[in-house]
């Protein structure tokens, strides 16, 4: 696949001289779903806003579809759709009129049929005459997607599409993203959730403190970072880790009342650990298998704890 977006040594300073993006080099391929991961304040939104033209980069080169962003900002914007993280919508406008407004802003002729079809695809058609203030959070997010798609963008940016969204809607959103990919749209999304990246991304990038610290194919990244952990709620407090767990990456939490054991993805060792615990008569009230959040994986990653 050819590169659709290419960033070379991009830096962004805010007015207060805060260095938000530091020598960012990144290539995004045409037709792929690229997930940008990172903790709060890492620079994800700044990077997206810079590529979308909402913020101007201080130095470096941003090339989109072979064009320099600085010289062709207006034209490049016609190719881009943006779904922001926050549900920014005008309260007293109707769904239909607001989507048509977005289409107009991108210089497209009124096309009621296209807008109606888009609303049907996003399960919003029944609500087309409703005021935006009357919609649920999930519907508002879908309206934002409809607005971003109203001008048939070639590139779609989704900033934290799953923030504050229930499981059902998250699944629906993923389906929409798959369909868009099938239609040839290049999708870049930022997320806190490794599950989301795991589910839909082709490639994943990690940003921290304004630097891109990792870009990898999803499968390779998950092999590195996406491990699970076994959490046991203990019947009795422990002062230190039991010796029989010395071969495992484990730690005690909550003043010795909770035992957390990291599971190795390459080995299916849950049953081994449970039988080891039983054998050593360590009693517990309940157990749970948790997938580590990106935040925790990320903290381990930058501390160098993740192998």
């Amino acid at each position, binding site marked *: 696949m050819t590169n659709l977006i290419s960033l070379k040594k991009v830096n962004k300073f805010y007015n207060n001289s805060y260095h938000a993006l530091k020598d960012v080099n990144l290539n995004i391929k045409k037709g792929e779903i690229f997930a940008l991961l990172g903790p709060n304040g890492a620079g994800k939104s700044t990077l997206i*806003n810079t590529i979308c033209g909402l913020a101007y980069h201080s130095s470096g080169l941003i090339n989109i579809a072979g064009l320099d962003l600085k010289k062709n900002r207006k034209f490049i914007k016609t190719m881009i759709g943006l779904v922001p993280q926050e549900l920014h919508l005008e309260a007293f406008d109707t769904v239909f009129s607001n989507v048509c407004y977005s289409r107009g802003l991108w210089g497209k002729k009124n096309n009621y049929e296209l807008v109606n079809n888009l609303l049907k695809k996003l399960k919003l058609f029944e609500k087309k005459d409703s005021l935006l203030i009357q919609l649920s959070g999930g519907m508002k997010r879908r309206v934002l997607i409809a607005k971003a798609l109203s001008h048939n963008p070639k590139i779609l940016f989704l900033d934290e599409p799953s923030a504050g969204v229930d499981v059902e809607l998250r699944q629906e959103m993923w389906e929409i993203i798959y369909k868009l990919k099938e239609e040839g749209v290049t999708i870049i999304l930022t997320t806190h959730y490794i599950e989301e990246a795991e589910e839909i991304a082709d490639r994943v990038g990690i940003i921290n403190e304004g630097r891109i610290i990792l870009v990898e194919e999803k499968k390779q990244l998950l092999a590195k970072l996406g491990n699970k952990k076994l959490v046991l709620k203990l019947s009795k407090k422990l002062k230190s880790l039991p010796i029989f767990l010395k071969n495992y990456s484990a730690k005690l939490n909550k003043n010795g009342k909770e035992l957390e054991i990291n599971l190795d993805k390459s080995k299916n060792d849950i049953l081994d650990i449970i039988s080891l615990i039983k054998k050593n008569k360590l009693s517990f009230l309940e157990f749970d298998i948790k997938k580590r959040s990106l935040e925790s994986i990320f903290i381990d990653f930058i501390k160098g704890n993740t192998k």
Partner: protein
Amino acid sequence: MINFKAILAIYFHEIERTKRTLFQSIISPIISTSLYFIIFGAAIGSRINEIDGVSYGMYIVPGLLMLNLLTQSISNGSFSTFFPKFNGTIFELQAAPISGIEMIIGFVGATASKSILLGTLIIITSTFFIDLNIAHPILMIFFLIITSITFSMFGFIIGLWADNFEKLTLIPLIIVTPLVFLGGSFYSINMLPEFWQNISLLNPVLYLVSGFKYSFYEISDVSIMTSIITILIILLICILFIIIIFVKGYNLRN
């Protein structure tokens, strides 16, 4: 290439917003102006002598018109730019392929259209209370249009500058309204002692009200050319400010 469709989208989006707030944008100013006509025109005005050969009810029409044009243009202009900042929808204007000039034409065009409509409705309303004759209709239309555009642009600037609701209402209420009242809207500055006449000449709104008065009744506190030059200077200052805002990206982009 000019994005005409975006200009029209912004324009009609703003006009739709006015329709949703018809009472606040149009009906409310007409009611308050009618009250001015009833109180100062019919009730008190009948006991006041003519000013410069014009009955008091007629005399206050240009001033009332100017009061509404200025305050409504600034209020509507500032709200239309402040609100996208307030509710966050400004991201869409920043992300869309729209230049600063296109944005200005859309927003200022819609605000100025509202003001022109309001001004026309106030003139029509005034005919229910007084016998209105307009000596120079073309000049009056020129002042109506240029004042609406200039102060809509001024409102646009205030909307970008303001970061809270207090700042938004500060300039129309604390500065513009007193300037209109003290700018000869309800009296001729010739009625003032010389010292206050000279002080009044420092008030730019006086020149606008005077120009309007001339277009209606051929009476004025300053020459008509001075009035025309003043409004053009204010317009140029507003354009200059807007150019600076878009070049610097002030409150528009990070």
